[in-house]
């Protein structure tokens, strides 16, 4: 009964989405305020219906209703409750419903938090979101309904893939989708601007917080996925340039370009066309990612079960959404005014350079990801493109961006001078070089690549601090340094915090790649092994039972300099539902390093109390990778909370208008 209600709710939602996608847009076009007013309530109703549908599916999982095909495929009565809930998005159909949930919640948020925007604008934004929602709901209802029944119902479910039975599944997809889907709001704002012909700095100011929010979520979502792969897969890797990973990275690169471009459009009214194009591109890349992951066009360890029919549908959807938005852009773009002037060397031009480089990076990832398909389609052979390619091309691409990150904050708007910038940043050069030379030597081996990474990271931090200090000095006006520092606008804090986050990330990547150590040894209980000064003593293995698995649990004592630190318990699990054994590594995480132990197999299968093959890792600074991402997202959050965007304070700041007319 409940799954049917959920299904019905989806059908209703599709109708509401269609309504939302047509009436307000037509109303905005013809100035029919009654139709325009449909937008907000329709968006709320849509969110309600989809949430209800999602709740029905969740109920089916929690109640172990194996007469629903999707539940039977992805759940099991022995599955712990948190994985029964997270299992809702463990497969293709459910994850699409999660997509929808996120889309409707974003739309609802826009409906709720946009009181200060003109109704007509809001109508266009929500209308666009409604059209996207309609397309997706149609896709779900026609090819991927999670509510299909299995009659007679299965006695027991097939269980959730053991790799997914982890807290990571509870957090990573929702975070990631919040980001992925969040770019639809920036997209909707761009479309609304194109439709109305009203492309100006005001549009950029409204659009910016929404874009920043989506970007923050996406940053955290990707970081979470990377961290999850690291501790779950058992061999210490954290990024594999897998097509699905690339599918989330490309919108991130475009989104980063977008938030910088919006800054210029808001401040100076320039780059309007370019910003709109980036907004369309970021969401288009999200949709493209959805296609790549679910159509079977590329092989990936993450790909959902594929069905060519679904691929065709998504492709048609892609053509409809992206094709029409690009056509709209091509039609409107020539009519848009130029905006403020700026010199060849200025903050605007440096930000534009940043944009170009980020777009090139994004295009490179797209090239590498689609290249095997291109060659195959052209009949020119069959090759594979993996991490060696991406790692080789990405570093040279990133280097100029990282360098410019330190320089641009010193450039003035409209017109800057190179000598002036050089004079401001020269103090940052020395500490950067010192770090680049000293740190690798401390860790044992100096190499040019390591030094480059550290040089850039230190450069970014040094210039950020310098820039901050300079600004405090100039705006001090007799207060104490600290008071002046704390009174700086939030967007300024946010910018530097996010940039420092990138520097932290670069340090993590550089140090881990250069100085990680790994040892494969066979150990009998009582024996020990040393890695990078960490002493592991193997105490043996014993059998333990989990809720839906049986495991061999190893015990290792970790000691440093003769001092006992802690006991670590790596496991080798055998889930009842799957033949493949799962490795659960034991990790001792620290600010400056992780040490990682994972169990291989017993040397003699009949004697598990004897010797085992063990792998131990020393990974310096690896947590800086994700720590850097968290700082980035934090920086974004702080910037987003700037006073400029707060609804209350805007009322005081804007020009007073006579009662009865709309605020611009």
């Amino acid at each position, binding site marked *: 009964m409940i799954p049917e209600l959920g299904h019905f709710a989806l059908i209703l939602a599709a109708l509401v989405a269609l309504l939302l996608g047509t009436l307000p847009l037509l109303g905005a076009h013809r100035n029919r305020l009654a139709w325009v007013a449909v937008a907000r309530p329709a968006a709320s109703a849509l969110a309600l219906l989809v949430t209800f549908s999602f709740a029905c599916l969740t109920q089916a999982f929690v109640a172990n209703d194996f007469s629903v095909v999707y539940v039977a495929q992805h759940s099991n009565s022995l599955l712990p409750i948190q994985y029964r809930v997270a299992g809702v998005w463990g497969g293709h159909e459910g994850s699409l419903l999660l997509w929808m949930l996120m889309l409707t919640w974003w739309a609802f948020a826009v409906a709720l938090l946009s009181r200060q925007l003109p109704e007509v604008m809001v109508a266009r934004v929500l209308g666009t979101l409604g059209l996207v929602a309609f397309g997706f709901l149609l896709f779900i209802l026609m090819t991927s309904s999670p509510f299909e029944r299995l009659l007679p119902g299965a006695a027991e479910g097939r269980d959730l893939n053991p790799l997914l039975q982890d807290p990571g599944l509870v957090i990573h997809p929702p975070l990631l989708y919040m980001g992925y889907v969040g770019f639809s709001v920036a997209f909707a704002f761009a479309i609304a601007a194109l439709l109305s012909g009203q492309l100006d700095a005001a549009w950029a100011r409204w659009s910016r917080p929404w874009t920043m929010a989506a970007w923050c979520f996406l940053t955290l979502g990707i970081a979470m996925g990377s961290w999850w792969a690291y501790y779950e897969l058992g061999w210490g890797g954290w990024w594999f340039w897998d097509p699905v990973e690339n599918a989330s990275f490309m919108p991130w690169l475009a989104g980063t370009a977008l938030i910088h471009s919006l800054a210029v459009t808001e401040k100076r009214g320039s780059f309007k066309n370019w910003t709109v194009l980036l907004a369309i591109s970021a969401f288009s890349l999200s949709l493209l990612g959805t296609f790549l992951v679910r159509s079977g066009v590329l092989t990936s360890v993450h790909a959902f079960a594929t069905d060519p029919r679904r691929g065709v549908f998504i492709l048609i959807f892609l053509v409809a959404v992206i094709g029409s938005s690009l056509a709209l852009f091509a039609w409107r773009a020539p009519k848009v005014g130029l905006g403020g002037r700026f010199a060849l060397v200025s903050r605007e031009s440096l930000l534009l350079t940043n944009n170009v480089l980020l777009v090139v990076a994004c295009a490179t990832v797209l090239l590498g990801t689609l*290249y095997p398909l291109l060659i195959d389609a052209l009949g020119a*052979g*069959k090759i*594979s493109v993996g991490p*060696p390619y991406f790692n080789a091309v990405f570093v040279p691409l990133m280097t100029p961006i990282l360098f410019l990150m330190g320089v641009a904050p010193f450039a003035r708007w409209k017109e800057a001078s190179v000598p002036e910038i050089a004079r401001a940043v020269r103090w940052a050069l020395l500490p950067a070089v010192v770090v680049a030379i000293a740190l690798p030597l401390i860790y044992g081996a100096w190499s040019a690549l390591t030094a480059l990474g550290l040089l850039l990271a230190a450069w970014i931090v040094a210039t950020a601090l310098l820039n901050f200090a300079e600004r405090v000095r100039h705006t001090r006006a007799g207060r104490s340094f600290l008071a002046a520092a704390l009174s700086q606008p939030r967007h300024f804090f946010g910018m530097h915090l996010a940039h420092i986050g990138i520097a932290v990330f670069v340090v993590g990547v550089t140090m881990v790649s250069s100085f990680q150590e790994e040892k494969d040894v066979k150990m009998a209980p009582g024996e020990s092994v040393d890695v990078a000064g960490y002493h592991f003593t193997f105490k043996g293995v014993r059998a333990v039972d989990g809720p839906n698995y049986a495991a061999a649990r190893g015990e290792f004592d970790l000691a440093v300099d003769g001092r006992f630190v802690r006991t670590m318990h790596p496991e080798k699990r055998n889930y009842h539902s799957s033949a493949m054994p799962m490795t659960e590594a034991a990790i001792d995480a620290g600010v400056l390093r992780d040490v990682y132990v994972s169990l291989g197999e017993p040397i003699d299968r009949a004697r598990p109390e004897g010797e085992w093959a063990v792998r131990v890792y020393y990974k310096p600074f690896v947590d800086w990778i994700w720590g850097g991402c968290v700082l980035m997202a934090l920086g974004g959050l702080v910037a987003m909370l700037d006073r400029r965007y707060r609804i209350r304070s805007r009322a005081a700041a804007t020009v007073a208008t006579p009662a009865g007319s709309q605020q611009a």
Partner: protein
Amino acid sequence: MKLLLPLIFALFFASTATAVDSATEAALAADPVAEKRLQHLSEELRCLVCQNQTIADSNAELAQDLRREIRGMIRDGKSDREIIDFMVVRYGDFVLYRPPVQGNTLLLWGGPLALMLLGLAVLLRYLRRRAARVADDAPLSADEASRAEALLKEDNPK
């Protein structure tokens, strides 16, 4: 407890008796130098069964067989080049984890640099043209200025 452990392991490993992971192989290696070379070579070859992993990381049967082959070839004194060629002759370019630099990958390897240079060139041209174009804007005449003021004083219908 004494019986439970072997029992669990018997069940546990019954289905995976011949599946040996690369960690175990490495741990059992007789010759650590050869093993290092094996590791390095394995990281350059793609597993054709689990297609997004190298044969170093994959535990598929084929990956184990190929690792064994490579170990044998290292013992026979074959060079790295010869071993890689051996694999490519049998499995094609697809087996290379790093795409080779050849005719059909010129676009791949050259693309990023070409894109960057193109992007920067277009940018430079655009910035120069823009600076020139906006410079043509003349300041408002006195007539236009007073008209502008009058407009600003009115209600803004938006």
